[in-house]
């Protein structure tokens, strides 16, 4: 009853729409998951975790790391940053390859005990989230040379960025640690890296 030509026309239109849509979806997916090439390698450093264990550049190898700079008595953006970090920490609890690192920019006040208490307050109960401290000079050096942050007015003037570091200790991307949209992008990047390293593991 319906002419054959109509059916052919319909099939052609739908195929055309389907192919164009596939192209757009693929492009969009690639653009979301696209990670920039290596920005720079994290330089050598030496710090101590809230559990009293040493932590250096080698601790970044074979792990995906999300790193930020905070201080526990910070009234400003740190609570938001730590809360975002805590959400990620909870969401990725099944992935020991993903570690979270918060470096104190106020080592005088943030003693190992203070950091331990802060970790407890954030519900940290395993090795995946580490709170690091070192003397102020070393912190400034890592912040400036390692991550290209401004460090003149620490502790108050620390960066609110989250840094994504790949399994080879390379800085791959920066995210606004206070912004839900940025965190959503970070999550996509974490997922794509985790999927990529899965076969090796």
């Amino acid at each position, binding site marked *: *009853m*319906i002419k054959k030509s109509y059916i052919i026309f319909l099939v052609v239109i*739908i195929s055309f*729409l*389907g192919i164009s*849509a*596939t192209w*757009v*979806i693929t*492009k*969009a*997916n*690639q*653009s*979301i998951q696209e990670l920039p090439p290596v920005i720079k390698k994290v330089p050598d450093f030496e710090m101590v975790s809230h559990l009293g264990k040493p932590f250096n550049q080698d601790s970044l190898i074979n792990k995906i790391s999300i790193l930020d700079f905070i201080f526990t008595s910070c009234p400003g953006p740190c609570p938001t940053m730590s809360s975002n970090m805590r959400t990620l920490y909870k*969401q*990725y609890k*099944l*992935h020991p390859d993903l570690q979270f690192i918060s470096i104190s920019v106020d080592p005088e006040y943030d003693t190992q005990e203070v950091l331990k208490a802060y970790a407890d307050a954030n519900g940290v109960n395993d090795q995946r989230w580490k709170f690091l401290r070192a003397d102020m000079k070393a912190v400034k050096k890592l912040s400036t040379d390692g991550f290209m942050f401004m460090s003149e007015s620490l502790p108050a003037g620390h960066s609110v960025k989250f840094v994504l570091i790949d399994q080879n200790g390379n800085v791959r991307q*920066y*995210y*606004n640690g206070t*912004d839900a*949209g*940025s965190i*959503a*992008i970070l*999550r996509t990047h*974490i*997922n794509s890296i*985790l999927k990529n390293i899965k076969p090796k593991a």
Partner: protein
Amino acid sequence: MKRYFQFSILSMVFTYLLIFVGGLVRVSGAGMGCPDWPKCFGRWIPPTSLSQLPDYIDPEKFNLVLAWVEYLNRLFGALVGLIILITFILGYLHFKSSKKVLYSISGAFLLTLLEGWVGAKLVDTVLDPITITIHLLLALVIIGLIIYSSIQAYFAIVGNFEKDSKYHPHAKNVILGILVCLFIEIIIGTEIRGGLDMSRKDNPLIEGIILLKMLGPFKYMHTILGFSLLGLTLYLRKIIYDNKFKSSPFMVNSVNFIMVLIFTQILLGEALVFFEVKPLMQLFHMWFSSLLIGLSVSTYTYWKISIEQ
């Protein structure tokens, strides 16, 4: 008058394409490709590189592909708005006497303006799920009105093409039942889609198929209503083919097309559940449902014309 009919068909085709493009924006995650409205990153032509961003926008939000996908949707939307405006003006010029044509195309035009405004709100509310659903439902009402007005215009031009038809007394209620079920089905569908997005946010690495299982009752309602729709359509087909009555080829073709589409929709829907939630399949699942709305409105209009003297 003929010019009006041509433009109303053009409006219909372009509105359908726009619904497809809108769905594409949704499945490719480009909804926030431009964080501002109506401009994109403060520009009428979206930036093609980071250096073109104005200083008050965080460069981190910029994704070239998503910005252009979203912006093309807006440009295409503006074009469709323009076509509907021309159709509306032609309707006003030629169909002052036919209230059915004039009212429906006026409604379509006004709702198109509203639709643009809802689109802007979507960006403002950072893709609020309820606003997304309203955005889709409005588009469906607009397409329904455009189709109704084109068929009524065709009737005004060629005379009563349904005068020889005589439909089963149940036909009207069955068609209306199909329309109502379709709307409910689409709303549930958007809920499933929205729920899937939410739970995916909370469980980033779980496959879509497991998330779908977590959605529970909505999914079953969607399936049950889908099969009810199939039942209604098969019944409609039966009474349309009944020898005691007489159906126009328009009606027969529309009902057959509805049946084929509902079969396809059930297959697509179940494929989404049992295999993987593929964006392309989601897109067509949504788009076919908009075709179904259009076809059901057509059958209703044919029936309505058949009882005119």
